[in-house]
């Protein structure tokens, strides 16, 4: 089974999904990410799905639950590069991914994570 690599860039974990997601792959990614956030103490997770063209409700829910899990481990999740067809499919499936941050591309996602980080520093 394919495992999706998780790259660490400073305080951010970067996940690039480049294969069609199987349910098993999605579950494995969820596990791996939780482990990695806990181990590295990362403050941000960026999931790049610009190469993802087909989604089902399972993958949609996975994005929500990854965001939830990361939130509990005090990391902010940003989903970047969603294709129009994927966005329309998720809306038609009734998944609006409430609470998940989104950005158009990796650059904007990085800026968003930096802003959140700066806010936290000021706040705490």
């Amino acid at each position, binding site marked *: 089974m394919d495992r999706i690599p998780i790259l660490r860039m400073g305080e951010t974990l970067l996940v690039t999904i480049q294969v069609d997601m199987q349910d098993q792959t999605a579950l494995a990614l969820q596990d791996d990410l939780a482990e990695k956030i806990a181990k590295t103490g990362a403050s941000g997770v960026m999931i790049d799905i610009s190469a993802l063209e087909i989604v089902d409700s399972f993958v949609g829910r996975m994005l929500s639950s990854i965001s939830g899990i990361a939130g509990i481990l005090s990391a902010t999740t940003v*989903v*970047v*590069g*969603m*294709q*129009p067809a*994927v*966005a*329309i499919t*998720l*809306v*038609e499936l009734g998944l*609006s*991914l409430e609470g998940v941050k*989104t*950005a*158009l*591309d990796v650059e*904007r*996602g990085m800026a968003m994570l930096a802003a959140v980080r700066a806010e936290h520093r000021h706040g705490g």
Partner: protein
Amino acid sequence: MIDQDNPLKDALRDPGAVVAGWLDELGVADPAQRRALQTEAGELVRSLAEGLDRGGDASRLAGPAWDGLRETLESLSRSRAAKGETAGDTSQFVLALKRPLFDALQRSRGDHPERLMAGIWAASQLVDRLAQHTATTFQKSREDIIRRQQDDLLELSTPVVKLWEGVLAVPMIGVLDSNRTQIVMETLLQSIVDSGSGLAIIDITGVPTVDTLVAQHLLKTVTAIRLMGADCIISGIRPQIAQTIVHLGIDLQGITTKATLADALSVALQKTGWRISREK
């Protein structure tokens, strides 16, 4: 010499008389209109005679022998459909051919009742087929026109315009149904990806009514835009529409709404970090 095998061929021996009888049957008084009809009728009678010469079966309008006649009929009903005439008038025109054909048969076969009967039956059947074919093509051309206009309307009504660096706008005009919202959604989302714009303004000034279904379509579009990582503002909400939205209990919480496109643009500029100042 009388053609024993094909009474119709015989009846069409004098096409001029048939056309004249046909026009009389139609009862057209206006000379200009009569001339126009005469050309059409002459063309039809000519291709009818051609079809018979090529051995076409008069009881069925099928096979290569009738190609010319079918084409003439099709172009006739297409031009009539484009002129906006009714299907009834168009088939009436073709059906009026019966009387002159019968007259011609009467003239050539009047002294043989059985042959006359056979000829009349063949003529009647043929003209009925012609009228049927005309009506079918007429309807098809009308449907084509409607379909083309619908497509044009869809294309026309969904332009995505760039208002500012990173700000797109869609002025929606006309009634919003699922079909149109789908197209607006697709074109807008694609433009967001192509231009990398972080903000989209949907202007609904041109949308006459907003009901729960339209609101649902709008909400879907806004959600899809948010999923892609862009922001969305809905503008052009008229006072009555604001009232309807509240009365219907539609929840637009979490969506930025503005009364005019200008207001929306100023919010968009603020969000993207622009400041505009007046010189004087």
